[in-house]
């Protein structure tokens, strides 16, 4: 059941990204350009998503366990450090350079767009590079 649910969640998530226009780099870059010709779409998408999770997560996390597995598997790192802030800052620069964050980039592979593939390969390379560095 667990793999099937993950597949369905991925489909719903990808469907949401596509209908919201987040797989369109022009819209994302338009949102990140409040001093130019601002495209507010992403603000609505982000608000809608957080509106749902902020309510639902309260109720879900009151449960002893999830429905299909024994335990919740949540990040437990609470530290506010340079790693977090520098990472987020670098991620934002990459987001602004091309207009994809990881989800929409993966979803855009479905359009068989060569540049989306280049983006995803570079992204995975960046992750592997950082992983190697932080282990040494």
């Amino acid at each position, binding site marked *: 059941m667990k793999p099937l649910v993950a*597949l369905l969640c991925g489909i719903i*998530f990808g469907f949401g*990204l596509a209908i919201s226009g987040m797989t369109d780099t022009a819209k994302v870059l338009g949102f990140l350009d409040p001093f130019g010709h601002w495209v507010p*779409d992403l603000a609505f998408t982000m608000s809608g998503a957080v509106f749902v999770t902020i309510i639902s997560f309260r109720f879900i996390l009151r449960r002893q366990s999830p429905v299909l597995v024994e335990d919740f598997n949540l990040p437990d790192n609470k530290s506010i450090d340079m790693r977090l802030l520098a990472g987020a800052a670098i991620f934002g620069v990459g987001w602004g350079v*091309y207009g994809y964050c990881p989800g929409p*980039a993966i979803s855009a592979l479905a*359009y068989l767009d060569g*540049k989306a593939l280049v983006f995803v390969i*570079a992204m995975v390379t960046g*992750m592997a590079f950082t992983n190697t560095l932080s282990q040494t």
Partner: protein
Amino acid sequence: MLTYSTPLIGGLIIGIAASAMLYFIGRIAGISGIVWSAISARADNSWRWLFISGLLAGPILYHALFNAPYPAASDLPWWQAAAGGLLVGIGTKLGSGCTSGHAVCGLGRLSLRSLLATVTFMTSGMVTVYVIRHLLGGL
């Protein structure tokens, strides 16, 4: 107002997908983390690859069902796709998350870490676009 109904509906749908992940399998729908774990061959990985497959199938389903055209391909150069991807990979690995993990799920959990990460990447994203478009004239 109708212009923004699809971005809002899409956001609600994304929130529902993230909620279902947590409710059924107890996981945060953080896409950068799921992608990294999937390629670094963690144990019990099939659900991750299926989630990723779903991320590709979802848009195909949407465009087919609603007869909506695919978004226009970006006219930015290839090197910008490579540079953007590389920085997104480095940043999400270092900062432990992206828009889905920190913004959609982290804010849902009222995580201070995620709030600070979200404010930081939103700000640096906007600064980057400002520099590229308005100071460098679009590269």
